[in-house]
């Protein structure tokens, strides 16, 4: 089972051993097995990556390493041995002593895991004091030292801030510090960087990797991103539907995956759109110019932003969170009337607010949202969701509407029988397809896609991107793609607009943007996208160090 060939094999003795782990989850008052007999072995100082799509059971297994099951779940079989101690049969008191002091947990959303009413350093000190390991002053001085090691700015004072006073990336590092506070033997990282921007992710990954190595802590790193896990782990375990698909050292897994599924995961970012001919001479479909907009009258989120989209083209807007890319979408749709600037659609200036736009204008511009879960009314059947734009805009009713509904479902590759389902009966990818069909039902010329794939698993996201591309080829629609994911940009767009702090820093055809020389911020953004190479993070950090040493100035991220 233990296939420790390659890097990181010379680790200590076995710390955690799970054998034949079975976990059941409850739904509709019945128990279903969600983890089917998984074996996990972890040695001291070793980092194990658990990777898989949602529903693979990776978080459930990670949490089980603490001898714990989430509400609605139960450990139904197998053994969990932590440092010789059997956790499945241990009583709550024993396990409570272990948690925090010897096993720590870092959650995906640091913002939701911190108590907003207490200072960071007080929350840091709570666990060691509770477990009687340190006094308050000892804990505080240790905290400052650890904040420094995690490269938090002003380590001596940052701890006295409240969680809302630091950025997301800093909070995630503070959370890591908190997990480290008792010098645990094992840390479980549950998707710690998923909610962060790529540029911020790098700093958090680097900080986590550093402390885990320095304290020789064993870790379980849970993520859906193979490129990220390759940076962090010595060994990777690929999970699917509660079973182990493949296990091996990180290097081996990246260079020679054995299973079809692992290969699919590796190739997920390889899709490229064929390059379209230059159409810049034609009249643009949408021309947004000199837009300045903000909420309230004081702070402007967008400053003199201009974007041009041609027919049957895909323009991507990229940037970190807070760069104003979603605000741009709200301005174009008319949800946020701009203070200054104009929206010209097909040669005609449109009113700033959607309330003043005609029904036909509204029809010609549709939007697809990030979260298909909340973009579909849970109480309406698919027939009603897709059928409404048909009757509302185009006046199609009765059997003609049913016929059109069938065609639309065919376009998004779903059977006609789905018309009678509720959104809750569909998977995430299927829901997003329904959203696409709803937008297409209005027969628009332009569709704004706001982070449409970021809530989906990678393989599903790839399918959605390919679907959108096929639809563009047959229906000649244009897309405005808003995303923070550069892999998506590279896959689907003809042109790219890079935004930073409400301004456009660079725009042009995709091929040119991705080719050096770049604007320094584009460079930072591009170089921060994790690659499928276990040495990528180390090399990148070394290169950035060297550049700083040479006295070059690096672009600042919004986070620090």
């Amino acid at each position, binding site marked *: 089972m233990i296939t420790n060939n390659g890097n990181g094999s010379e680790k200590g003795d076995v710390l955690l051993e799970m054998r034949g782990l079975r976990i059941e989850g409850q739904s509709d008052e019945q128990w279903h097995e969600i983890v089917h007999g998984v074996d996990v072995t972890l040695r001291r100082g070793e980092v194990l990556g658990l990777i898989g799509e949602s529903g693979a059971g990776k978080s459930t297994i990670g949490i089980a390493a603490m001898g714990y099951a989430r*509400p609605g779940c139960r450990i139904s079989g197998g053994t969990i041995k932590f440092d010789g101690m059997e956790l499945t049969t241990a009583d709550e008191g024993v396990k409570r002593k272990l948690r925090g002091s010897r096993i720590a947990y870092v959650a995906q959303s640091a913002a939701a895991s911190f108590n907003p009413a207490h200072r960071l350093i007080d929350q840091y000190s709570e666990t060691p004091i509770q477990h009687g390991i340190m006094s308050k002053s000892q804990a505080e001085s240790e905290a400052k030292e650890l904040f420094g090691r995690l490269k938090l700015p002003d380590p001596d004072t940052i701890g006295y801030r409240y969680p809302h006073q630091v950025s997301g990336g800093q909070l995630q590092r503070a959370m890591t510090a908190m997990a480290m506070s008792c010098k645990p033997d094992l840390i479980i990282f549950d998707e710690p960087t998923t909610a962060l921007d790529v540029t911020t992710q790098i700093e958090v990954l680097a900080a986590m990797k550093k402390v885990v190595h320095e304290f020789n802590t064993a870790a379980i790193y849970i993520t859906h991103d193979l490129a990220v896990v390759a940076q962090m782990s010595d060994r990777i375990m690929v999970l699917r539907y509660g079973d182990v698909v493949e296990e091996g050292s990180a290097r081996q897994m990246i260079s020679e995956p054995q299973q079809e599924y692992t290969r699919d995961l590796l190739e997920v970012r390889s899709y490229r759109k064929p390059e379209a001919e230059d159409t810049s001479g034609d009249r643009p479909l949408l021309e947004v110019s000199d837009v300045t907009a903000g909420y309230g009258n004081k702070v402007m989120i967008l400053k003199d932003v201009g974007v041009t989209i041609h027919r049957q083209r895909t323009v991507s807007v990229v940037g970190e969170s807070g760069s104003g890319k979603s605000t741009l979408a709200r301005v174009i749709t008319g949800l946020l009337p701009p203070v200054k600037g104009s929206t010209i659609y097909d040669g005609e200036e449109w009113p700033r607010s959607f309330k003043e736009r005609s029904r036909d204008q509204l029809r010609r511009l549709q939007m697809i949202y990030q979260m298909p879960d*909340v*973009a579909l*009314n849970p109480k309406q059947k698919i027939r009603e969701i897709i059928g409404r734009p048909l009757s*509302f805009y185009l006046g199609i009713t009765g059997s003609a509407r049913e016929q059109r509904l069938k065609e639309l479902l065919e376009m998004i590759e779903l059977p006609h029988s789905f018309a009678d389902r509720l959104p809750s009966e569909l998977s995430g990818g299927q829901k997003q397809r329904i959203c696409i069909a709803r937008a297409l039902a209005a027969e628009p010329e332009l569709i704004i896609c706001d982070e449409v794939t970021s809530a989906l698993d990678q393989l599903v996201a790839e399918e959605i991107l390919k679907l959108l591309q096929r639809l563009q080829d047959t229906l000649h629609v244009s897309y405005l793609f808003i995303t923070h994911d550069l892999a998506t940009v590279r896959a689907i767009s003809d042109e790219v607009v890079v935004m930073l702090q409400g301004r456009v820093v660079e725009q042009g055809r995709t091929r040119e943007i991705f080719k050096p020389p770049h604007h320094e911020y584009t460079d930072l953004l591009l170089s921060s996208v994790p690659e499928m190479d276990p040495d990528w993070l180390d090399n990148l950090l070394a290169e950035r160090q060297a550049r700083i040493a040479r006295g070059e100035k690096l672009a600042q991220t919004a986070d620090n």
Partner: protein
Amino acid sequence: MVEFWKLLKSAPFTAKLGLLIIVINIFVGVLAPVISPYGETEIVGAEYEPPSEQFWLGTDNLGRDMFTRMNYGARNTIGIAFITTALAFFIGSVMGLMASTLGGWVDQLLSRIVDVILSIPTLIFALLLLTIVGTTIPGVIGVIAILYSAPVFRLARAVSMNVVVLDFVEVARLRGEGLWWIIIREVLPNSMPPLVAEFGLRFCFVFLLISALSFLGLGIQPPTADWGSMVRDNATLITYGEFTPLLPAAAIAVLTVGVNFVVDWFLYKTSGLRDDH
């Protein structure tokens, strides 16, 4: 139908008991003229007769049969309380959903009016308004419905606030849908479970308030049989250690408890609240 029986079977004992109480009350109320031995306002015996074979529960202060009056009381009190609650919910939900969907000054205006209504103790406000509009049955229904639409407004507004910010409502707005379509098709269906549960609870409050007003003499007027005024009419008997006036009081209490049992079960079912969370 099959699903309904399945659901009923899985219900806890308290919910079954509550449902049984409600069903019996509705049954008695609807069939009052059939199952009662005498007429609603008919004087059939001497005053304050003890229970006997002729008068199962004795007679009241005017010599009317208590059992008959209890049956008609169920019909009147529950019927009026139900109509009142329904009206309060209609007014409160429509206003609440409008406030949250439209926002801005509509929301401000409606919310401040509701604040004013809520700042005056309900019973005192009800007494005041009833002296103005008069103590007719439509008057009682109207006054209580308006007073109780205020907390319903609050709830409907709070619940739908969480719904109107969701993307599917934005989709409908961007599609160009009108206000009513958005309220009735998008917002209301997703705000229903808490409102339905609140309906049960509010029904109890309305029911108790009507009884209290009747007890004070400003609610349902004699000779109409009603549990609240029946308690008052026979209140003197309490001094003599008789249980007759306690019967309508007990009926009020039992129905309130029964409705609450069912509401608890419904809330548990719909809100996803589980004991282990």
